[in-house]
């Protein structure tokens, strides 16, 4: 093993100074205003100017703790014979709440899954499904596919996350490695519109075949319920009063 898993040190030293980090935080987009997150009525609390900014994306550096280091090392070692460095295939690693997430670059997803299943030090045999998540604000990486895999041999569980831009919603299918991904990828296509290249039959699975749109997406119109009273209607959920 020659390559250390994890991110490289910052190119410019001044970027890591605390003052610079503060600047970065202040320039982050605002995700919530006011104390109560109410957005349709005047805020009389006196905290109306309060702004909550978006947290920067999490990223963890080794050591990750527990068995996570062993998995990262073994994955780096397994990818090496293919001429792939750990950081070529994995964008970043996040350890949060006792769970590890490998953010995989989508072009290397199948290679990573192949190693995860077949390398004796990894052996993640049980495929735990695909869960799509739509982040409309994450420009250029709007659609995420999240995979959970479980190793019975080593009693370990990890998460893989792949992102694709909305304009190019293609993610390679892992059905060639994990046959059980078949229905899960169909479901994620059905609800989020992610196209899994190489899937044997990527058709809708839950919605009717001729359904327009992908209902799991955040921009999917929900529609309201018309009521027979002065032409009004019950507004769709996203237009009702809510708290951010």
């Amino acid at each position: 093993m020659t390559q250390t898993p994890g991110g490289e040190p910052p190119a410019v030293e001044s970027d890591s100074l605390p003052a610079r980090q503060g600047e970065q935080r202040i320039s982050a987009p605002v995700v919530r205003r006011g104390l109560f997150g109410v957005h349709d009525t005047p805020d009389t609390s006196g905290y109306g100017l309060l702004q909550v900014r978006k947290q920067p994306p999490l990223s963890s550096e080794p050591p990750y703790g527990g068995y996570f280091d062993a998995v990262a090392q073994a994955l780096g070692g397994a990818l090496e014979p293919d001429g792939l460095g750990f950081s070529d295939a994995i964008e970043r690693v996040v350890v949060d709440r006792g769970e590890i997430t490998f953010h995989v670059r989508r072009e290397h997803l199948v290679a990573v899954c192949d190693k995860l299943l077949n390398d004796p030090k990894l052996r993640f045999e049980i495929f735990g499904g695909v869960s799509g998540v739509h982040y409309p604000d994450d420009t250029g990486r709007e659609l995420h596919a999240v995979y959970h895999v479980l190793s019975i041999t080593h009693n370990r569980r990890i998460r893989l996350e792949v992102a694709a831009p909305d304009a190019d919603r293609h993610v390679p299918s892992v059905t060639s490695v994990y046959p059980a991904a078949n229905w899960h990828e169909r479901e994620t296509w059905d609800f989020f519109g992610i196209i899994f290249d190489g899937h044997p039959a990527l058709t809708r699975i839950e919605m009717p075949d001729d359904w327009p749109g992908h209902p799991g997406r955040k921009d999917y119109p929900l529609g309201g319920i018309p009521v027979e009273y002065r032409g009004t209607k019950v507004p769709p959920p996203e237009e009702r009063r809510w708290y951010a």
Partner: protein
Amino acid sequence: MVRVTTHATPGATDADAEAAEGRVYNVAGQDWDEVVAGDTDRAENEQIVVNMGPQHPSTHGVMRLVLTLDGETVTEARVSIGYLHTGIEKNLEYRTWTQGTTFVTRADYLTPLYNEAAYCIGVERLLGIEDKLPERAKIMRVLLLELNRIGSHLGGIGPFGLELGATTIFLQAVRLRENVLDLLELITGLRMNHAFIRPGGVAQDMPAGGLEAVRDFLRKAPRMVHDLRTLIDANPVFIARTRGIAYLDLQACMALGVTGPLLRATGLPWDLRKSQPYLDYETYDFDVPTTDTCDAYGRYLVRIQEIEQSLGLIQQCVDRLAERTMPNDPWLIQDAKIGWPARLSLGPDGLGPSPEHIAHIMGQSMEALIHHFKLVTEGFRVPAGQVYTALEGPKGELGCHVVSDGGTRPYRAHLRDPSFHHLQALAMMVEGGLLADVIPAIASIDPVIGGVDR
């Protein structure tokens, strides 16, 4: 001989009809030998496509099987699902975190408490309150989960018999299951769709007389399970229909990610309660039953033995609850910003807010009133992040992927339902087998379409 032909298009000749509808057979009576003799060339290679469903093909819910048959042999099986899709995951995104339990409980309606537990443990891990859960809540959760496991397994075994034409098995299993449902009704208030497990604990304490009712159940249940086993275990008809049927060995289970009783019927004692314990399962004493037959009969044996193990676990929960005699033992997290504030009580006019709670928030504590109001209208905020929780459900690994953006509502919640996952393995079990064996194969997976389609 006069031949009467009825075509879909009136006035069409046999040749027209054959072009439009396929081969036409004219049968006028007493000419069967002639018809069969003239058709031997085709019968050799003829494949018939049969649509099973979409009505209950095996009383597990609404799904459809597209079977290609060569005689009685299934050459291809495709499962079509989606008839019971209700958008539970999408609905969750427009409700508070606490209201989320009301939705997930409706996914797999035979394992409602498992859905709730998987979701709530996920929310608790996001909140970082896993180690602050009251002891009583954990024991009550284990008690309810194991009761639910018995109910779910009986809901699998009973209809299994019914599908094979054995009404007695069904009635015996349902008789025992009714006892389980009565207990669940006594403790949670409902037979199903409980919404009883909440982020931070459970909704209510054990009711008065609850422990005694569970003890009473534990006294009569082993006898009923024994009766059921006497009826089924060595039943020649049941064995003939299940032994060697729907074969799925360890290699196939690994390749298809199959868990639960299907995996344990191949001889691998994989149980998340042992390998990755949650809710302090490591402190309970129980075994993981396995068989190595890899068939429908083995899966039945695993399920019925798990019922016996669950009875032992329930006994341990009852003992632990009986030991906790301290007054005001909390069953919900003692955090005013997360724990659901409303206390319910049974008054003369039905179930409603308890008078003590109303007196407290209206007359004594402004803080309590604020917390009540804020939690009920707005809910609590959950720090941004994502977690995946996996429980050993009755049907296999039940996972819940919960994502928060820091708001008062789930950003995304996804249930990895074992039924959904395992139905993918159906084709491997039934292809090359007989049409009649498709039914025991489905029943041995024990899928519930509410969970499959969500």
